[in-house]
């Protein structure tokens, strides 16, 4: 009986060691994050995503968004890429990309994921300080 109990504990212990590491998000991540200052001066009118097929059977995530300016304004934007586990995938640029918009102008911006393992993204729009 004691041997059976020990064997069961050992099996359970090994099973515990073999379990895959899990990642979990503490709050729901939004694809689009727009700072309040930006909302006053422009509106995001489109946000599209597609996967670009690659010859090796994989695909790259590609996103495109459009903003329409209500007044002459400046915009800073950045896309952060995530893999299936929610981990950040590094890309070449760390900084925000800046753009100028004229009143009534609709501008289209796009970004391509740095690796095929990217499955999701977060686009952040903010007002540059300078």
């Amino acid at each position, binding site marked *: 009986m004691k041997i059976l109990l020990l064997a069961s504990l050992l099996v359970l212990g090994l099973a515990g060691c073999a379990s895959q590491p899990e990642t979990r998000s503490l709050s729901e991540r939004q694809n689009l994050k727009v700072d309040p200052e930006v909302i006053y001066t422009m509106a995001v009118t489109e946000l599209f995503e597609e996967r*670009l097929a*690659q*010859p*090796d059977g994989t695909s*790259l995530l*590609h996103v495109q968004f459009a903003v329409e300016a209500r007044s002459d304004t400046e915009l*800073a934007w950045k896309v952060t890429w995530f893999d299936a586990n929610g981990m950040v995938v*590094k*890309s*070449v*640029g*760390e*900084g*925000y*990309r800046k753009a100028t918009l004229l009143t009534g102008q609709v501008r289209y911006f*796009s*970004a*391509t*994921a*740095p*690796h*095929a393992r990217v499955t999701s993204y977060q686009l952040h729009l903010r007002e*540059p*300080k*300078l």
Partner: protein
Amino acid sequence: MLIRALVISAGIAVIAGCAAPTRYIDPAADDGPVAMTMDYRDFEKAASDAVEDMLASGAVNNPDGGRYVMVVSRITNDTMQRIDTDQLTKKIRVSLLQSGKVVTTTAVGLNGAEDEMTMKARELRDSEEFDQSGVQRKGTLQAPDLSLSGKIIQRNHKVGKEQQVEYYIQLSLTDLVSGLAIWEGETPIIKRGSDSSVSW
């Protein structure tokens, strides 16, 4: 005498107090002032634009599968500044490597190998001092498939009471089999500022 010493000390203290403190800048959150010269943000923008366009266009997709081997050719600095063009090419290389599509050879270069150790290590061949099983064999080096070349151009203009400095970062990716440029890109970086600003 004491009063003079006090005044000088106070003066030094005031001057030291006025100096901007040295601080770290986080490149991921830098809203700092823009320089008329090219700074790290300009190189980052140019590299981002280039890599994203290369990936999106499919130019770096090897139809035979596997990774392309790229060599960095000449990047001409036609500006008034002393620029180390590695600031640009290294970002592109790192990003292409991380994409899993392109690996850069350091064994070949216009002015000799970037890493001379590749050939130096082969000089150990037939040396009785070295275990020959660990020495690189003949015919193991991989020749490049693609070549990255380019030019950075600067143009200065006087616009009213201001100065406009235009930088154009032009890059080409050449297929070494055919000699054809399979991808080309240009990132213009235009800055306008005080006429007294220096752009060299």
